[in-house]
């Protein structure tokens, strides 16, 4: 059975001047432990898809299922990581990581110890009592990952979590995050506008059209010698082939959007 399913999903935003169709007839199936990326021109409703799966928005039409059950509000099965880390500056790193646990009423000894272990595993053991302003961008995003995974979600939604980082940090963090999520056997949906990042990290890429977003193309990524390492994936001979193909499809959407 699919982990996440979208069936004929439409999403239309309304405001005073009228309606803005964001998504139109989106179908999507994500298998358990699969890593799927959503690529598309900006404003195509990629992030809307994540908000819908997270249960923070209701679709105008269509159905969203997790483990075959319709989404009704936020679910503990879903972990959401945003573009910025949104660490609370008045809490030290440890208590930032406890935030989700506190909200869910799970901040007991066992869960907190698990959260501490995650921080140690992600190389932040020595920074637990530091404040976010004392950490680098990469460290902050790792802390945000620990905050997400402390809640032990089955599905992790990544909304351009690397886009605010410098290039080198970005490559290193991609590698770490991919490894961690594979080890933890999470189902992952990544939203990005970085084609190379999508190819390097994903099992499958869904390309969305310009607004209103709909599934335009789909690629199953098979790279020789990838071994779940985005860095190795970038060296694979097939990488450029995928890049060229996805680039041309995206350019069509981009031209249509202009």
């Amino acid at each position, binding site marked *: 059975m699919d982990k996440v399913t979208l069936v004929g999903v439409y999403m239309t935003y309304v405001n005073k001047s009228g309606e803005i169709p964001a998504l139109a007839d989106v179908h999507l199936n994500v298998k358990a432990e699969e890593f799927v990326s959503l690529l598309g021109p900006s404003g195509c409703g990629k992030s809307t898809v994540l908000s819908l799966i*997270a249960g*923070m928005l209701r679709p105008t039409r269509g159905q969203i299922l997790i483990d075959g059950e319709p989404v009704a*509000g*936020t*679910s*503990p099965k*879903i*972990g*959401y990581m*945003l*573009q*910025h880390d*949104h660490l*609370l*500056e*008045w*809490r030290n790193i440890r208590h930032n990581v406890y*935030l*989700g646990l*506190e*909200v*869910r009423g799970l901040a007991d000894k066992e869960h907190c110890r698990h959260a501490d272990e995650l921080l140690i595993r992600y190389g932040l053991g020595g920074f637990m009592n530091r*404040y976010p*302003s004392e950490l680098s961008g990469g460290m902050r995003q790792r802390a945000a990952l620990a905050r997400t995974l402390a*809640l032990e979600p089955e599905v992790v939604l990544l909304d351009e979590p690397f886009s605010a980082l410098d290039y080198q940090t970005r490559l290193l963090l991609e590698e770490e995050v991919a490894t961690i999520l594979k080890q933890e056997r999470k189902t992952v949906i990544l939203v990005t506008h970085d084609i190379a990042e999508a190819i390097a990290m994903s099992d499958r890429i869904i390309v969305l059209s310009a607004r209103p977003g709909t599934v335009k193309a789909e690629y199953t990524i098979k790279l020789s010698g990838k071994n779940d390492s985005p860095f190795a994936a970038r060296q694979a001979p097939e990488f450029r082939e995928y890049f060229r193909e996805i680039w041309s499809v995206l350019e069509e959407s981009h031209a249509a959007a202009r």
Partner: protein
Amino acid sequence: MQQPVKKNVRFYSRWFRRGAVSEAHGEYLERIRKREMLIVSYQVLIGLMFLVFWEVGARVGWIDPFITSQPSKVVDTIVGLFHSGKLWIHIWTTVWETTVGFILGTVGGSLIAVLLWWSKWVADILEPYIVILNSVPKVALGPVFIVWLGSGTPAILMMALSISVIVTVMMVFNGFNEVNPDTIKLMQSFGATRQQILTKVVLPATFPTMIAALKVNLGLSLVGTIVGEFLVSKEGLGYLIVYGGQVFNMSLVMASVIILCIVAALLYYAVTVLEKRLIHWK
């Protein structure tokens, strides 16, 4: 050929350059430390010149000390107040009225802001009234408070409170609305209730704004208290100023104003210390 200039010729250079790690660093330190010292010197000089001109002017007859008083008489007055034991009573009255006023104003204003944040309905409905109340000069309501609360301390506290509460509402409510919507989105993804969003994100994020409001309110409450004391009291620095004016004792007026300046500065300093203690993460 020009001789290389011998460094550190002046005996004070070494003192200015203390802690330098290199020649260039030493020159830099000397430059900025000299500048700092010059600035402080000018600040002191301006104050001293003012006092000297005031005193000498009054003695020589350039200005009329009956209208302007003079520093020596002001000092005499303060010493006299101190010996009569009344000085502390007046200072204490003004300080506690102001403190109660600005704390009530800040806390009350923040509570109202929470209410407005909680219900967008209430916020939108009350908006024009808040704007109107903000533009009313609260001092003009003094007589109203006296009629309602009697001519005593409650009316003074009400003045101090009313002058600071609306500003606080506006400052803190704006602060609430400036909290990053994505941080709230993150909380919602955890399934947070509105109360959890308020207590775990919105209030702590706006805490620095509340401290800033506290600083603004300190000055405003002092105005409210002094005006209140002008109108009704028998104690306090505002009373001393108005009494001094009525009996044409300008030394008493000037002495009270100077004490008021010192009290205001000390209160402001206290709030700054509090701020450093409370906002420890920056």
